């Protein structure tokens, strides 16, 4: 994994971010005033009940949306004023999404799904296949490359999604309820995998409403009504190294 050196600067810097939606004549504040810094190789959980604004915050951090107020600095670049195309490029290069619903392309096999971000990055085909194969092998799916999503279990699908998130070597992995659609065993496997990714030097932001899942992170940010309610360090993140070795079952 490429190490990100920002000379002590935060990877993500949110300055008084707000996001207002116009619903008819009414203004709805999804985010009121959020300031937040996340440093390279941090493992952060964003928690909050539904309606707290955590999805909106995730969308802004993931460059799917832009704030209506405030500044968002990603890797020293102000992305809050970028247009659609520039944001698409940032998402492609800097962000790796992992969704609750996996969001794989149903008609494409695992390898094609993992290749896709590299297509939009303009990487040559042979190189793409090489990188994608490697990423799939890394998540323990080296023998499932030609399977389509509906031929894979939930846990396997999520691992394909993680491999896809990793292929462009993004600065940030953004996971939205990654275990929300999995049974507890598969969910645990996925969380182990995230732990491993963090150990490999990745920066992870986990959006969840489950305290059990958030316990994996080293810092927990709680949102309520579009504001940061509480921000706390987790002194005892769940340590899979202590429990058992990271072993990914197929």
């Amino acid at each position, binding site marked *: 994994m490429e190490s990100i050196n920002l000379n002590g600067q935060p990877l993500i810097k949110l300055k008084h971010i707000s996001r207002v939606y116009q619903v008819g004549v009414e203004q709805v504040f999804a985010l009121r005033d959020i300031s937040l810094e996340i440093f390279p190789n941090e493992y952060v959980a964003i928690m909050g009940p539904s309606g707290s604004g955590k999805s909106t915050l995730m969308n802004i951090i*993931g460059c*799917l949306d832009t704030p209506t107020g405030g500044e968002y600095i990603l890797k020293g670049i102000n992305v809050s004023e970028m247009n659609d*195309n520039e944001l698409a490029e940032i*998402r492609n290069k800097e962000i790796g*999404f992992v969704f609750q619903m996996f969001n794989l392309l149903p008609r494409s096999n695992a390898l094609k799904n993992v290749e896709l971000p590299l*297509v939009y990055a*303009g990487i040559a*085909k042979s190189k793409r296949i090489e990188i994608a194969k490697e990423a799939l092998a890394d998540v323990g799916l080296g023998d499932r490359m030609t399977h389509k999503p509906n031929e894979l279990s939930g846990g396997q699908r999520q691992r394909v999604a993680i491999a896809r998130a990793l292929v462009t070597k993004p600065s940030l992995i953004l996971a939205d309820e990654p275990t929300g659609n999995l049974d507890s065993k598969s969910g645990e496997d996925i969380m182990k995998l995230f732990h491993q990714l963090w150990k490999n030097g990745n920066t992870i932001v986990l959006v969840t409403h489950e305290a059990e899942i958030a316990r994996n992170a080293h810092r927990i940010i709680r949102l309520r009504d579009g504001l940061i309610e509480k921000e706390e360090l987790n002194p005892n993140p769940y340590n899979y190294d202590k429990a058992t070795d990271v072993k990914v079952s197929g």
Partner: protein
Amino acid sequence: MLKFLAEFAESFRISIESLRANKLRAFLATLGVVIGISFVVLMGWALSGLDNALQESINLIGEDMIYVDKWDWSGGKRWKEVRNRKEITLEQAKELIENITTAVVAVPVAVTWRGEIKYGNDNYQGLSIVGTSADFGILPAGDVTNGRFFSKFEETTTANVAVLGYKVAETIFGDSDPVGNFIKIKGRKFEVIGVVKKQGTMLMDFIDNRVYVPIGNFMSLFGGEHLRSTSIGIKAGSIERLDEVREEARGLMRTIRNLKPWEEDDFSINETKAFEEVVGTLRLYVWGIGLGMTVLSFIVGIIGIMNIMYVSVAERTKEIGIRKSIGAKNRSILFQFIIEAAMLCSVGALTSLFLCSILVFVVANILPKLIPETAFLRPFIPADFIVIASVVAIIVGILAGLLPALRAARVDPIESLRYE
């Protein structure tokens, strides 16, 4: 550039995948395009056949030939006026032939349409008997494959010799050589001395169904009854000399026919241009009908494909969201759907070209056996129309795909990721 190619290849792959996933739908959507392309291709085929026939006819008659005749080939003149013209007699024809100085050669052509010949005990009807001079053998229409044309000597001595048109020879003698055999015309015995090579085309199909005899013999056989006036074929030698020859022939003919300066010509000077005019009108009809049908079916085709593309965009909203979340730009999505629509149309075009090729091959091989006049049809689609059809299909696809693709490109990634 590499990026663009990678995206293009990806779009291509996606569109094939999505076509495969919805075969029936794709088929129905492209029906309009298939029909449209078929019209273009079949129109092209018919036109090329027509041009083919025209060229053959022109070659047969000779582009440097003019025919002085009572009748007008192009049919442009008022029919009634033409019908009331006095016949051109053999004497008038001979006078013109003797006096014309600019022509390479000039021949009289007298025809009886209700000819009948006898070979052995069999009667053959429905052919025309032509009286002409030995010089007819110089003309392309008098080109002999087998034996020879009759000579000047045979002409002046009114020898009982006949040259058969290709079809006449084939009908009576089949594969065996007619030369040296005897046929009977109105009870008079004629020796067959040659066969004119096959010349029939759609426009000139009657020409193989002729029997040529010296003009003197013709007159003694049919002089009393033959209804049609004599015409004079004049060979100018080159297209450049046509004007000069035409003017001389016209002047001579006016004198021969005793026309006053203010009177209109009571004869026509026909050239191959007349055929071009006839074919030109025919072409216009084919184009008009074909173009109308083509435009109509393309409009239907565009609407069909546009609809399917809108459905496809709606169905794949989630996919668009996923693609955008991992870095697809609006442009990439736009391309993807335009390429898909173009692919859809190209598949339609290929289907149509395939079906038309079979149709054309079968028709061109079978129809002429039933209707010999259709022999001008060729068993393949002209290459330029294949190119036109393909280009048109892609343009139609792009047009049909543009609006749905714009809608797809504008899909909001957040909304669409939530979409189930």
